[in-house]
């Protein structure tokens, strides 16, 4: 009677405990088994799946082992954790289901395979300690891996592409080793890839598939499924988990070679990356999740349906994966919303920055060209005036004008720099430069024909300004070249770290640029529209901007939603000299967003100081996000804190004075030339002028 089974009662069929309070007191496992096996006949056979022996049943059979606990069980066998009494070591004891051994040549095959496996010695393959037959039970003891299988690891959280890639090379090494010894695994799947607590990978169940193979022509390659208690309970799955099987393994099991393992590993990699197994028709991984497209090629090649199109060895597979993983870790594009944060992917090697350096070379070349050409050009000018003193005068002026560039160069030498992918000159920028040059030629022609340029004063003013700015290009260009050559990947926090008990609230004025702003040419050009303020306290990063933020962005970013903080440089279009930005990647609730912050120091701050300030902010933001003490605290100085303001002020003053001088000289010359009538005979008598003026002014 069903209801007579109280809590703690046992099912009469399978012996499992049955709780009368649920499922009407019927044994749920038996009910489901009825669903699984039921063929409609009235007398349902008792569960066809093999019942794993209990520890008590096994103990007399294995006196040499202290059986500790069952690890997993399936229809074809069971695995137990045990301690080998003689050596005291932990082992995994695998007991094969007796009905498997009913096949007449099983014993022979078992011994043959087990011996082959026992010779294996590889750090990424589970070692076989012993095997044999006790009573009617075949058993294998092997290394106990204290950890989880890859299936369990995947179920605890999504693997990042980097983690997924890290898993492949050790498996490939183990496969290569086994293949060289003539053993094909045939059943690579996440359940058979064990991950110990140190994160080391080991392949389990090598050769078991072959051991258990039913030698019948129609038999499809089986699975072991011994270790992890799943599958093999119904007829449907006795044929295995076809998702990991290479097509030729499914269609023609006798033709299987080592490339079937490569296919299966491809399936595992695909599953780690996308969370799904590839079906009959499947998409490239990068179309499902945001990953490096170069991974597609690697995965798809392993998944080729024809073995000859796949990697021919596991070593080849490994090499390809490692090249991608070590060369450039699959980075994520900067300004697009991404599902996974960049998590501080740092390019391991330094790379030059052509955008800055090419600029520097051009500047230095121009400056040198002028210096070389100056005596010739100056000679022409002075010869025309017969005034050689002018040459000396001009040389002195150029020297003076070149001077402010020198501290800028020195400042550049102190600048921290960041790694950056090489940036090509965008075709749009190139077009505008070209258009400007073409457009300016007639302007220059007009200028050279103008009365102002033909006057001595005009020539001197032109020489001073053009020459001076050209000469100044030399130190500026040297600075740029130097910046491009800096090899420090991360900010050299040169000062002693200021230890603070906890992050305190900070406020800064500066650029607040949503990543989308830089998607367009005009956005890059009008970056100064993004002026604003930001405040940081222990919970929030609050942003105030003079213009509203684009939709999707948060004005108040909780620190807990910040995924990543890093420092990078703005594109050359925004700032030619290389202005740094703090990239804040955060989860806005509707997706991952990026915001670029450039805190400004004060009006006199040099580019180098501003860039260092950005690094300080980056470090401080990271510390605030992680809830730890920051190594540095960005010091906002309202007044110049160092003597570097002297050159800055000098540049500013000279430029300002030069502009005033140039403008006034130009105006004066123009004024003079309009006042002076060109033909002398047309000139009115001097005494008439005031009268005419007077007349003109009297209405």
């Amino acid at each position, binding site marked *: 009677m069903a209801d007579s089974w109280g809590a703690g009662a046992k099912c009469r069929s399978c012996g499992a405990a049955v709780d009368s309070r649920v499922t009407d007191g*019927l044994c749920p496992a038996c009910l489901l088994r009825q669903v699984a096996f039921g063929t409609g006949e009235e007398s349902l056979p008792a569960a066809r799946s093999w019942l794993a022996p209990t520890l008590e049943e096994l103990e007399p059979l294995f006196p040499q082992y202290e059986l500790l606990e069952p690890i997993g069980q399936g229809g074809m066998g069971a695995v137990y954790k045990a301690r080998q009494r003689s050596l005291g070591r932990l082992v995994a004891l695998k007991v094969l289901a007796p009905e498997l051994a009913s096949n007449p040549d099983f014993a022979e095959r078992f011994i043959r395979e087990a011996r082959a496996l026992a010779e294996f010695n590889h750090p990424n393959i589970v070692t076989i300690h012993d095997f044999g037959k006790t009573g009617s039970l075949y058993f294998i003891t092997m290394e106990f891996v204290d950890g989880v299988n890859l299936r369990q690891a995947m*179920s605890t959280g999504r693997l990042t592409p980097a983690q997924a890639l890290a*898993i492949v090379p050790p498996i490939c090494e183990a496969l290569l080793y086994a293949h060289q010894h003539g053993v094909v695994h045939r059943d690579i799947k996440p359940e058979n890839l064990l991950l110990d607590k140190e994160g080391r990978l080991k392949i389990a169940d090598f050769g078991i598939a072959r051991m258990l193979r039913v030698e019948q022509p129609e038999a499809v390659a089986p699975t072991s499924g011994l270790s992890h208690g*799943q599958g093999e309970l*119904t007829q449907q799955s006795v044929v295995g988990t076809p998702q990991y099987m290479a097509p030729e393994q499914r269609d023609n099991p006798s033709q299987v070679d080592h490339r079937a393992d490569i296919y299966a590993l491809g399936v595992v990699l695909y599953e780690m990356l996308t969370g799904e197994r590839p079906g009959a028709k499947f998409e490239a991984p990068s179309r499902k999740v945001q990953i490096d497209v170069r991974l597609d090629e690697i995965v798809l090649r392993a998944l080729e349906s024809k073995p000859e199109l796949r990697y021919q060895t596991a070593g080849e597979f490994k090499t390809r994966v490692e090249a991608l993983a070590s060369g450039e870790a699959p980075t994520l594009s900067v300004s697009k919303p991404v599902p996974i944060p960049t998590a501080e992917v740092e390019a391991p090697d330094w790379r030059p920055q052509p955008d800055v350096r090419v600029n520097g070379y051009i500047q230095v070349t121009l400056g040198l060209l002028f210096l070389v050409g100056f005596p010739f050009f100056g000679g022409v000018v002075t010869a025309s005036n017969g005034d050689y003193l002018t040459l000396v005068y001009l040389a002195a002026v150029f020297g003076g004008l070149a001077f402010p560039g020198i501290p800028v160069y020195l400042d550049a030498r102190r600048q921290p720099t960041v790694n950056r992918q090489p940036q090509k000159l965008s075709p749009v920028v190139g077009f505008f430069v070209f258009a400007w040059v073409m457009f300016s030629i007639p302007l220059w022609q007009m200028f050279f024909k103008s009365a102002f340029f033909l006057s001595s004063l005009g020539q001197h003013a032109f020489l001073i300004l053009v020459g001076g700015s050209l000469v100044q290009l030399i130190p500026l260009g040297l600075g740029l070249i130097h910046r491009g050559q800096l090899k420090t990947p991360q900010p050299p926090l040169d000062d002693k770290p200021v230890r603070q008990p906890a992050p305190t609230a900070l406020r800064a004025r500066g650029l607040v640029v949503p990543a989308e702003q830089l998607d367009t040419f005009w956005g890059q050009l009008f970056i100064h529209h993004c002026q604003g303020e930001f405040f940081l306290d222990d919970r929030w990063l609050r942003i105030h901007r003079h213009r509203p933020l684009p939709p999707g962005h948060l004005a108040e970013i909780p620190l*807990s939603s910040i995924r990543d903080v890093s420092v990078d440089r703005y594109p050359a279009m925004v700032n030619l000299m290389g202005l740094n930005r703090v990239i804040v990647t955060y989860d806005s609730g509707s997706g991952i967003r990026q915001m670029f912050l450039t805190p400004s120091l004060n009006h006199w701050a040099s580019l180098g100081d501003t860039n260092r300030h950005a690094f300080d902010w980056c470090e401080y933001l990271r510390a605030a996000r992680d*809830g730890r003490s920051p190594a540095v605290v960005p010091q906002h100085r309202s007044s110049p804190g160092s003597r570097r303001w002297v050159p800055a002020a000098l540049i500013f003053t000279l430029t300002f004075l030069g502009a005033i001088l140039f403008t006034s000289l130009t105006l004066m010359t123009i004024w003079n030339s309009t006042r002076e009538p060109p033909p002398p005979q047309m000139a009115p008598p001097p005494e008439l002028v005031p009268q005419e003026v007077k007349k003109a002014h009297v209405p």
Partner: protein
Amino acid sequence: MSAALPNAGGFQTTRWTQVLAAHGGTQEARQALRSLCERCYAPVELFIARHGNPDEARDLTHEFFARLLERDSLGNPDPQRGRFRSYLLGAVKHFLADRRDHEQALRRGGGHIPQSLSDMACAAADGEEARADASFDRQWALSVVESSIEDLRQEARATAETERFEILKQWLMPNAEVNAAQLATLGLSDGARTVAIHRLRKRFREVVRGRIADTVSDPADVGDELNHLIAALRTE
């Protein structure tokens, strides 16, 4: 009740497929998700109770489902998104982790620590996680069985055969032992009883398979999922 069940063998598009195909975006998909969620209240509540304060579990479960159904989309695909069960387990974990993070963020200003492979292995090997997962799966299996029996009972009630069902249901088990008094109350000849039992078992299989089919993305996975649930029931 029975109208909500898919026809035997005819479940080409399952509810879960509908939800997945629309990424949870359309009205039908939401409806499908809602009806899926209605059936899995118990495992979720038990899972939540296991992870936190049992007193709060009911409220948290309410909150979890409310949020799940409010969402515009299903979010990122789960590593095992083939199954609704896995998806839901992932979502519950995410929900609980979010709450924890939120509480921690309030306390000390956030902190996402990137997870390394060995951390993950440790966390997973810790056993607690695995045990909780196993318990969730076990509860899931129980709720599938229980709700399927309940469906049969409802069907019996519709035809006013409740009493007969209460006795016949024991034959859902293999080796059923039914006492003579109950047999007598059935008032069925041996042949008629055999036919009735046969029909009941068949219907039970259809209902269970239908329920499971609703939660997998590929009808071919039903057997696999069934295996998983049987295995889940065996681990205690």
